[in-house]
């Protein structure tokens, strides 16, 4: 059954809660939480919202308190270690005391924040940005753009009052070569929480008038080493990496390179150095022009000289060749004219010799003819007496033969050898003058004539 409820005053209750909590949470605890909003008040005290998110949903939330003096201490150590002031929307490792105040309620009083954890977190964020850019293929995107031959038109993202800007402009405007740059300032925060979005915004503006510019430079200087974690901001880095013209950075610090510096087309340590880089690009354009003039002068002049020499050489050859040709023809002509005279002399000599030969032949043949005829006449003059003598001998022997015959035939000579001639009636006895028995015959001898009578007749065998 319901008793009559005991009624406490609010203070009683709240005090009881405070007591209970104080008893229960006497220690200090290390808590990892995201500090959503710092909520620093004019008093210097901060009342940050502490959150824990899982899959984007807030699963725990509590108010924190940092008393002014502690905040200053913590912030000092952050700047020393992290090179960044304590800032919102970061996960921090903080030492807290659970406090309950009758008027203000429950909060975690932050007595210390570990700057090394924050530093780790920053590094992680930097890594994440790099990883994401890499995944998206943007890591080298800006660096792969071709650099204009002359980075004449420069969109400068900087702060009006920046020492870096004036250093940079000093280099560009006061160069001794009269290189002329066109610069236009696009003012932005260069550090701290607003820097990333501010720079992104200016980049967007520049994009609108992109055709007026060759390069974008982001210069900062004299701002110390603090508040540069914005240059690891993914969105900013993405904007830089994917920017259609080269983005050059000259942020002026000596710590680890930020992601923005890494992915920029080129990073210079200082704005002055960045200015020098642009000047150098002009030099790179200007020097070849000077060289070209020299080169053209040297080569064109020597080409002409070369041709002149070739021409002189050729005209010398022409002359010597022509003279040689004339000389050769002259020699040929002399040789031919010598041949004419020697051949003619030979022909004349030859003809003279032939005539002499013929004269000699005529004489020789005549002499032969005379000799032959003389021999013939000689022969005949020998033949005449020889034949005549022969004839005489012949006639003489003929006569002698005849004389011999005649002598042989003389009857006297027959009778002398003992033969006799018998005649009958005065005639020699023959068949026509036959003797008969009793006929008287006369026998004549050389010395006698004998008369006889025929007694017997027989026929001669």
């Amino acid at each position, binding site marked *: 059954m319901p008793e009559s409820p005991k009624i406490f005053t609010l203070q009683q209750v709240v005090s009881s809660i405070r007591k209970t909590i104080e008893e229960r949470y006497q220690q200090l605890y290390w808590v990892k939480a995201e500090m959503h909003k710092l909520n620093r008040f004019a008093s210097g005290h901060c009342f940050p919202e502490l959150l824990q998110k899982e899959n984007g949903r807030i699963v725990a939330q509590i108010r924190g308190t940092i008393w002014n003096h502690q905040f200053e201490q913590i912030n000092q150590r952050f700047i020393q270690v992290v090179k960044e002031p304590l800032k919102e929307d970061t996960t921090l490792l903080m030492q807290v005391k659970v406090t309950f105040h009758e008027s203000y309620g429950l909060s975690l009083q932050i007595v210390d924040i570990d700057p090394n954890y924050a530093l780790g977190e920053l590094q992680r964020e930097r890594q994440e940005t790099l990883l994401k850019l890499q995944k998206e293929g943007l890591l080298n995107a800006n660096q792969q753009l071709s650099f204009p031959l002359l980075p004449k038109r420069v969109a400068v993202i900087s702060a009006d009052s920046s020492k870096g800007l004036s250093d940079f402009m000093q280099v560009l405007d006061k160069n001794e070569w009269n290189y002329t740059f066109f610069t*236009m300032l696009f003012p932005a925060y260069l550090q701290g929480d607003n820097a990333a979005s501010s720079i992104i915004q200016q980049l967007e503006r520049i994009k609108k008038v992109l055709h007026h510019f060759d390069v974008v430079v982001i210069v900062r200087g004299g701002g110390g080493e603090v508040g540069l974690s914005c240059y690891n901001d993914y969105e900013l880095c993405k904007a830089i990496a994917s920017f259609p013209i080269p983005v050059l950075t000259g942020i002026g610090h000596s710590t680890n390179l930020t992601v923005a510096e890494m992915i920029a087309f080129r990073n210079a340590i200082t704005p002055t150095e960045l200015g020098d880089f642009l000047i150098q690009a002009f030099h790179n354009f200007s020097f070849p*022009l000077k060289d070209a003039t020299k080169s053209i002068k040297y080569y064109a002049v020597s080409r*002409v000289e070369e041709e002149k020499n070739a021409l002189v050489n050729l005209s010398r050859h022409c002359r010597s060749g022509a003279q040689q040709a004339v000389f050769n023809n002259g020699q040929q002509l002399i040789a031919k004219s010598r041949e004419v005279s020697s051949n003619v002399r030979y022909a004349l000599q030859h003809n003279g010799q032939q005539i002499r030969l013929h004269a000699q032949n005529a004489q020789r043949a005549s002499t032969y003819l005379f000799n032959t005829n003389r021999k013939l006449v000689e022969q005949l003059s020998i033949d005449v007496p020889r034949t005549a003598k022969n004839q005489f001998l012949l006639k003489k022997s003929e006569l002698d033969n005849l004389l011999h015959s005649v002598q042989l035939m003389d009857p006297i000579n027959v009778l002398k050898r003992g033969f006799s001639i018998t005649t009958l009636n005065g005639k020699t006895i023959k068949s026509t003058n036959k003797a008969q028995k009793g006929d008287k015959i006369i026998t004549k001898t050389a010395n006698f004539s004998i008369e006889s009578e025929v007694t017997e007749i027989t026929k001669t065998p």
Partner: protein
Amino acid sequence: MSKDIKYTDAFDELKQIVADIEDGEISVDELSIKVKRASELIKLCKAKLTSTEEDVNQILKELEG
């Protein structure tokens, strides 16, 4: 020569001419033409070093547009 020729092209053309002249690949007939051209290109490029055509107001106007 047209002023419209881009200084980049001018620079490339100049480099080519210089290379040709250096190689002795240019005949005497072409030489003065080429040298003249080179001279124009050099002038054009030099002018580019020391001149500017951009106008901040114009850009601002475009930005506001």
